[in-house]
């Protein structure tokens, strides 16, 4: 079950010719795949392409109807390998993942795939996770295209263009026997727009047909001598075929006047930013009518030399707008011009930054820099540009930098991973700090305040692998963390298997929240929900024991901080050899609430007996030290200023959003903090027995309270 339901989006997938699709870019691409007659789709979820996976898994019935096989791949490597169905058979297939993280994982299969080549169209939709909002290292997928001779599309970021390019990508793949990557950046994936839909196509050749009529061709297999032939094929046949196809079908676009002496060559994905920049300089309007010639590369690899040459012909200078590093396109264009002895001057990274996203401000500076250098006349009387600097330089705004706190992502309210790291912090207080090797997933938020736990992260499912060197006798053991997502992605073999085989002496903490949570709560092998289309409920504990782990502890309620502490302490101190594996399991609260909250509300309305729970802090007892917050960071555990003149500091308080996970109470108890926390349980639609007990208890308690309070002076405490 993904984090949100895509029921409505699934309906959009059914749109036919002449109907208008309105929605997110990545969903438009999903629709495009069906319009292309794909027979299978796979991939691994992750921002910004999770929605492609989520909507297809919600649409599985329709997929069956359409004869499309969809599966959630175990990893990007699995997804890439899946494309081998298109090697021998005229079957169209598509896979997707987040790049470059996912492409790194997939590259083994990709190299083999592109070496042998494909028969059916093989398209890889990669969410280029670059710039603001990115959660990974800043690299370019372009390099993978170059090294493996995979074609790379970078369409203009509007729905019609993206859909058109995806459709053409399949044709190109078939015309050149080469897989094609379609690169879409974060904002393009989430852009809302519209396009005219076409009817979906059933696959022309089905997987069933293939299975029943198997083919093989040893010439397609990467072994000498074929492997050498493949390389020749790539450069002598497939590359020229691709260039010809891109040219014939005008997949790259040219805009603007022909008679201008300068021009701009840009990645398709940069188009909207360039137009806006030119518009602000008075050189374009909001409808893309540019006074400067634009050569838009919807395919950034391979380049079409003749197109580059004809665009540069007669131009004194051309700017290349190419995001990221190194400047592959700029280098290539220079080579092309050199070889043809064309004297056009090339600008690029000399006026635009080598590293970092091309934000509006950056783009503007770059364009001005280029024009000032090569064609100042075009800047004309220089209309005033949008400029926040007077505001930003005012003392009032400078002062803001102090007042506005950073707000990085963190654990959600009631997150079951919070108590795990609270426990680690408490044990750290006893046994001192340890080297902690972190992984990828929500649990990586532990590196931020208030926990500040975690030294390195080397990749998905590689937390414990990244600790493997620390397998020597020492007074402290290395601790490594890994999520259930990473565990099944490749952690079982690369991390656990490796540790068992090498008798690693470290502590391995596997955070099991029942989902691939950080990517949107998709099901994985060990998910506890029963999923009719998948086999879930496969125990992580059995898996690690299955490959030989002996010291394994399962914790079924991570909120039990005391038990977490004891188990960690034991793991760090036991004499037993081999990896000490703790599987800490509790359901992701975001997903749990999505299911439970409506159920509870309905039950209450239907008059069923339910118990509403929430935690609270007695503000008269809280002394405002906030030690509890330093061990929690829960959004619902916050601070509040009382009107009490005797208080200097705000007290802790728990707001309405509390889901009564129990972390506060258990932490306060395990850390011997303070007695201000309480849990209140209110019984709605109480039955007779409930009410009888209540009456009895209240009678006694009220009498005792009256008795004492009548004999003393009491003042209402805090005013807040």
């Amino acid at each position: 079950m993904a984090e949100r339901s895509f029921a409505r989006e699934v309906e959009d997938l059914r749109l036919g010719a002449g109907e208008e699709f309105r929605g997110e870019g990545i969903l438009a691409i999903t629709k495009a795949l069906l319009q292309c007659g794909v027979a299978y789709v796979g991939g691994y979820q992750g921002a910004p392409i999770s929605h492609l996976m989520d909507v297809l898994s919600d649409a599985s019935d329709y997929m069956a109807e359409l004869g499309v096989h969809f599966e959630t791949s175990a990893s990007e490597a699995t997804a890439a390998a899946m494309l081998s169905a298109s090697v021998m058979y005229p079957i169209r297939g598509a896979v997707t993942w987040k790049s470059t993280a996912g492409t790194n994982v997939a590259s083994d299969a990709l190299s083999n795939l592109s070496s042998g080549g494909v028969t059916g169209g093989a398209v890889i939709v990669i969410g280029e996770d670059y710039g603001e909002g990115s959660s990974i290292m800043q690299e370019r997928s372009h390099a993978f295209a170059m090294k493996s001779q995979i074609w790379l599309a970078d369409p203009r970021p509007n729905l019609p263009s993206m859909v058109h390019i995806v459709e053409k990508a399949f044709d190109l793949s078939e015309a050149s026997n080469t897989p094609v990557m379609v690169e879409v950046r974060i904002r393009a994936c989430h852009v809302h727009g519209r396009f005219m839909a076409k009817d979906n196509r059933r696959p022309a050749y089905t997987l069933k047909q293939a299975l029943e009529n198997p083919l093989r061709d040893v010439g397609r297999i990467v072994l000498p001598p074929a492997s050498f032939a493949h390389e020749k094929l790539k450069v002598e046949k497939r590359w020229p075929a691709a260039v010809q196809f891109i040219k014939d079908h005008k997949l790259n676009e040219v805009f603007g006047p022909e008679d201008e002496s300068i021009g701009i060559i840009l990645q398709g994905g940069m188009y909207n930013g360039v137009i806006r920049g030119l518009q602000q300089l008075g050189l374009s309007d909001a409808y893309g009518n540019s006074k400067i010639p634009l050569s838009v590369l919807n395919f950034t690899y391979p380049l079409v030399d003749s197109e580059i040459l004809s665009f540069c012909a007669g131009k004194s200078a051309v700017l290349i707008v190419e995001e990221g590093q190194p400047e592959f396109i700029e280098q290539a264009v220079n080579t092309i011009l050199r070889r043809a002895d064309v004297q056009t001057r090339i600008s690029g990274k000399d006026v635009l930054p080598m590293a970092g996203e091309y934000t509006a401000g950056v783009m503007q500076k770059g364009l001005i820099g280029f024009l000032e250098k090569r064609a100042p006349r075009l800047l004309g009387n220089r209309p005033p540009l949008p400029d926040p600097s007077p505001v930003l330089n005012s003392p009032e705004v400078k002062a803001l930098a102090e007042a506005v706190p950073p707000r990085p992502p963190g654990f959600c309210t009631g997150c079951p991973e919070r108590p795990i790291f609270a426990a680690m912090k408490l044990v750290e207080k006893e046994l001192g700090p340890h080297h902690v090797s972190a992984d990828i997933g929500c649990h990586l938020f532990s590196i931020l305040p208030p926990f500040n736990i975690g030294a390195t992260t080397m990749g998905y499912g590689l937390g414990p692998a990244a600790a493997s060197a620390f397998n020597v006798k020492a007074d402290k053991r290395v601790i490594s963390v890994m999520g259930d997502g990473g565990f099944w992605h490749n952690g079982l073999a690369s991390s656990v298997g490796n540790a068992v085989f090498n008798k690693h002496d470290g502590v391995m903490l596997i955070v099991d929240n029942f989902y691939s949570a950080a990517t949107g709560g998709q099901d994985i092998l060990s998910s506890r929900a029963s999923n009719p289309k998948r086999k879930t409920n496969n125990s992580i504990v059995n898996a690690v024991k299955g490959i030989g782990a002996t010291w394994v502890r399962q914790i079924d309620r991570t909120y039990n901080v005391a038990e977490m502490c004891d188990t960690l302490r034991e793991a760090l101190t036991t004499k037993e050899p081999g990896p000490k594996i703790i599987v800490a399991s509790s359901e992701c609260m975001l997903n749990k609430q999505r299911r439970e909250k409506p159920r509870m509300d309905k039950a209450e309305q239907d008059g069923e007996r339910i118990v509403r729970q929430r935690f609270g802090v007695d503000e008269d007892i809280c002394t405002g030290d906030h030690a509890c917050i330093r061990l929690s960071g829960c959004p619902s555990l916050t601070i509040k200023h009382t009107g009490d003149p005797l208080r200097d500091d705000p007290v802790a308080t728990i707001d309405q959003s509390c889901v009564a996970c129990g972390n506060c109470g258990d932490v306060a108890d395990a850390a011997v903090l303070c007695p201000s926390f309480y849990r209140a349980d209110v019984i709605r639609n109480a039955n007779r027995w409930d009410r009888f007990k209540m009456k009895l208890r209240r009678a006694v308690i009220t009498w005792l309270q009256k008795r004492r309070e009548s004999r003393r002076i009491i003042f209402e405490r805090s005013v807040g």
Partner: protein
Amino acid sequence: MPELASERPLTLAILAMGGQGGGVLADWIVAVAEAGGWHAQSTSVPGVAQRTGATLYYIEMLPPRGLEVPVFALMPTPGDVDVVLAAELMEAGRSILRGLATPDRTLIVTSTHRAYAVAEKEKAGEAIGDPRIVNAAVGVSARRVIAFDMEAVAKAFGTAVSAPILGALAGSGALPFERAAFEAVIGAGGKGVAASLNGFAAGFELASTNELPAARIQPEPMVAQLPATLGHAALDRSLERIRALPPVLHAMALAGLKRVTDFQDAAYGNEYIERLLGLYRRDCEVDGNAKSFAFSLAAAKYLAKAMAYDDVIGVADLKTRSQRFARIAADMNAASGQPMYLTEFMHPRAEELVSLLPERWGRRVMANVKLMARLDRWFNRSRKVETATIRGFLQLYAVAGLRTRRRTLLRHAVERAHMEHWLALTTQHLDCNYGLATGILSAHRLIKGYSDTHARGASKFDRVLSAVPLLASRDDAGQWMTRLISAALKDEDGKALDGALETIRSL
């Protein structure tokens, strides 16, 4: 080539925290524009920021122009934004820091409520971002501002903050669409339509309000008008003695009297006033009037806290009061017919147990290390007490009952000794160094919490006072004490404090 069209898109930026529904708000706005025949585009970069982090959604829109399709940008240009919608006060500040707001054109619509960031919450003292700075920044960076507590409005109508924000946007007239168009879009949504519409309407009505906070914190500490009587003859004499004090001390002295009396009894409260007057007289002798009685004010505050220290009896007392039961029931909106049960999370150690013994026994037990260890093994464990059941209530009720004997118990003796030493120290320095003496009183702020937390606070208190001899001869001793105290509150283990102490030694 065609002449360039002059239209420029209307641009909106939404700044929200993950989980606040910024995406819903963006979808609503786009839907309204498209329903009005406009072209509209929204983008965002949620990523993991969906997990409580700061998020930005960006919208551009243009009216139709023949068959031409506009090319919208995917991110805002600083200085080129018409409307900023901020779902929390500091996010409005963030939008300004990002250069999204400029006085020539930007309308800022922001909620004034605060959701404190971890960086603000985790500090041992008071470390929230000052809302007045945001207020001032908005003043220089917005053409117009709409600001009110949209979170509160949303709560009142049982909806999300995005509803009143959309209402305020509609009411602002910044978008050329009728109110009905907005309501139609909300109505088309799935669940919670009625609540959303109410929240929207409320926001719409408030679209001309600007309630940016003018004060650092709400509510500000009140300045009390002294009442005619406290309703207890035993206390009214003390009340009169407070009345005789300079007005600047009234609020604090009254609060102190109430706290100390509430902690123990009227006699104890009167003793507080007795001691306070003693300190006040010393203050007058050294011309405290000229310093607007800073010393007496600090005394009124911290003497009360020193006398009404945080102990097990007090905790049990507060947890068993009828007041508390009523307050929590209201907070949980539990009707009288609905049973409510309470679970207290306590973890008393041997120390707490022994602190309840009569002084002489207590000291003996404390001295016996072996016995203490055994007691700790036997006693030190988590105790979840169910205060709303008779059994659980009686446990705490019994402990609270020790209040009448409190002044004969070990803990009281310890606190007493500590207080006397502290008061002696401050009065000793009062004659020659007013600032230092006041600082010594204020250092009591560091003593807070229970068990380990209390021990940590006490040690910080001692370390701060360790600087007193070094500062005795300096006129700026007062400022130094203030610096030391705030340093002590910066981090848990007092690293900042050690640093500050180093500096002082090097003076």
